[in-house]
């Protein structure tokens, strides 16, 4: 599998956002790593799922000549790139040629000029837990600056296996996309056993910063089961209900879930349920 290549301390960076107001509490520096073991049908950034296989399909489509092929590798020229995302649209492998391999020190040098404006860093993906060693090294550097470190994860990797990383991380923002395993397999392509185990383990170890659940059109029973399960346990941890939106979703996802945003009215019923189950910090977006 592609994501197993990354065990060194450099990691493939898809994007780096100096100020983000949507990746955890307050203003945060957000880092998006490339590669994800899930292939969710509703994914908004499917180009983060796989690493580039250097097939070269994108090279000739670049309108400004920012892509070239040298020694069978696709090379991206950051200076020339105008971020029109044509390469991402034509990629047959759910990937992007615009990936930088970065070391924790290189990320830190991008972080430092904005450090005084942010509470800390949030690392997302793809799935950032594909690179636990990189995260440990990066978090050690960020913590030394007195800033917080959050992991944004799909929960595919068992956090308890990384005690050093978990002692550095201030918390995890965990996706629980469905509690029903068959439904989870159907929409995410993989089982959810570890996800649910992580949910309990993080909760018990007070490392759960936030839980997120997608609300899917036409799957009311599944939505109800997931929201009911999580909200009975989550207590004071922030629980975000994210309404499905069709933007950026690939055709298989649209076929299954449709071209409409999950309605606010239906979402409100689930918010009410979550609150009545004792979840004190429910947010619906």
């Amino acid at each position, binding site marked *: 599998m592609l994501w197993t290549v990354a065990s060194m301390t450099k990691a493939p960076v898809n994007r780096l*956002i*100096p*100020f*983000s*107001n*949507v*990746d955890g*509490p*307050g*203003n*945060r520096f*957000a880092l998006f790593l490339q590669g994800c073991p899930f292939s969710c049908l509703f994914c908004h950034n499917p180009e983060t799922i796989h690493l580039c296989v250097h097939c070269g399909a994108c090279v000739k489509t670049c309108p400004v000549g920012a892509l070239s092929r040298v020694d069978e590798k696709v090379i991206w020229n950051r200076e020339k790139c105008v971020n029109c995302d044509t390469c991402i649209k034509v990629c047959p492998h759910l990937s992007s040629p615009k990936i930088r391999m970065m070391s924790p020190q290189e990320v830190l040098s991008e972080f430092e*000029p*904005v450090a*005084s*404006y*942010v*509470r800390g860093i949030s690392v997302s993906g793809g799935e950032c837990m594909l690179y636990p060693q990189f995260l440990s090294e990066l978090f050690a550097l960020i913590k030394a600056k007195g800033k917080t470190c959050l992991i944004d994860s799909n929960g595919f990797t068992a956090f308890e296996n990384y005690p050093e990383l978990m002692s550095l991380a201030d918390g995890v923002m965990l996706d629980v996309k469905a509690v029903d395993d068959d439904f989870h397999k159907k929409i995410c392509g993989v089982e959810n056993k570890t996800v649910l185990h992580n949910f309990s383990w993080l909760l018990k170890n007070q490392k759960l910063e936030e839980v997120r659940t997608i609300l899917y059109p036409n799957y009311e029973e599944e939505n109800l089961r997931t929201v009911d399960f999580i909200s009975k346990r989550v207590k004071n941890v922030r629980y975000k209900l994210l309404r499905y939106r069709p933007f950026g979703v690939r055709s298989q996802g649209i076929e299954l879930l449709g071209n409409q945003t999950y309605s606010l009215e239906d979402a409100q019923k689930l918010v009410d349920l979550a609150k009545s189950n004792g979840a004190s910090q429910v947010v619906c*977006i």
Partner: protein
Amino acid sequence: MNQVLQIVQDATLTYHQKVLALARLAEANDHESLPVNDAYVKAKEMGIICDLNEGNTPYRPRYIIPDYRILMQKGCAMLELEAPKDLWEATAALLMMYHHVPSITSFPVFLGNFDELLEPFVLKVSKEEAKKCLRLFLAHIDKTLTDSFVHADLGPKASVTGELILELTEEMNLAMPNLSLKYDPEITPDDFAEKAVSCMLKTSKPSFANHQMFVKEWGEDYAIASCYNGLKIAGGGFTLHRLRLATMAKQAESVEDFFARVLPNYTDLLLNGMEDRIRFIVEQSKWFETDFLAREGFVKMENFTGMFGLVGLAEAVNTLLKIEDPAKGFGYNSEADQLGVRIMEALNDQVNGFKSKYCACTEHHYGLHAQVGIDSDGMDNSPGARIPIGYEPALHQQLNHSTLYHKYFVTGCGDVFKFDQTWFNSTQALLDIIRGAMAKGYRYFSGYNADADVVRVTGYLVKRSEIEKLDANQTSLNNATVFGKGARDGGHALDRRIHDQSSR
């Protein structure tokens, strides 16, 4: 058509605006009282120095910052007012006095620290009664002090009055008064500051003033008045003149010529022009001898200073370095940024090397001011030390860049940022940014949501819906609306970059 008749027949002017326009016209006819030298006149005609239309015969200081605490404690003899005993009397007394506080616009540019003045009275009544009273107070201000350079302050402490003013500001959505929160993360509680952020997104106010920075420069008794002018309470600003640096830079044959000849010459002209005007105001206009504000001690002459303004630092730097594309110049290139610093250092030295007969509160020196521009500046001279509109870099880059320059401008400097809807859900994030910027030396932060009706143009507030009235040849009560229209059309002042949820 003669100018008097033109004013009289102008369909976009209210009665009151006509009176003021006619008064300005009359003053423009006096060429004897305040003599100016030829070099000054020539530089003014060339657009290099600008007196902001302060008039030929100044009959009051430009900005007057009364100490309204005296009104609260002792009343006012001229207005036959005793010290107010409750909230209704306090707000009525303030409104009566505001009517008699002059300025360059003929409206008071400072209304006091609302929470400090009113909190003792607010605490004596129910919240409902306080809110009703304050609602009338704010409505009265909006409908009678019809000029959005009218400015009130809040903070740095949280207060019931402060909370009510923020609530009402959101509910009423008015352009007047302009509002600043004196913000100090060590004094101002986060929840109060976040309410102010939310209010700012909706209504473009309050802006955030770096309290620690102003206190260090001015002491506790400072005011934020007019756009964002730092001045002393019980004092004010005699005058504000400005260098139009971009226009000036065109006179230089080289960078060295600019520093050796051009900049010192025009700086000297402006300093002396300001001093002549200040002496006229103090020695000949009779204002300090005759006005009750001075006679009763609401202001003291020694608490006034001169404000040395500038615009067009960005374009001056780009002109001197022969950079044609602004996206490669000031704000994007360290050589350009460092030249900006060198200009500020040179100005700072020369301005602080000039000794005024007056301005005792600032050790007989004038304070530098990053002037917000006027409608006729167009795109040639960007306000103060700002990066030109249309070329704003990422938010963090713009803030980092600004902190190179803000420290020089003790009488005011700041920038305006436009945000998308997502920031309503993350007022914490915006507060983090403001706090971080201030820790780095950012002086004054203004923002608004891209969909707001009340918008901050360059430093003052107008309603977009009111500009549309002028577009339709109708009147607008707010005297500043016409400036907003000019800045929109000539300076693209409403077309700022919109910062989204992941501000890149």
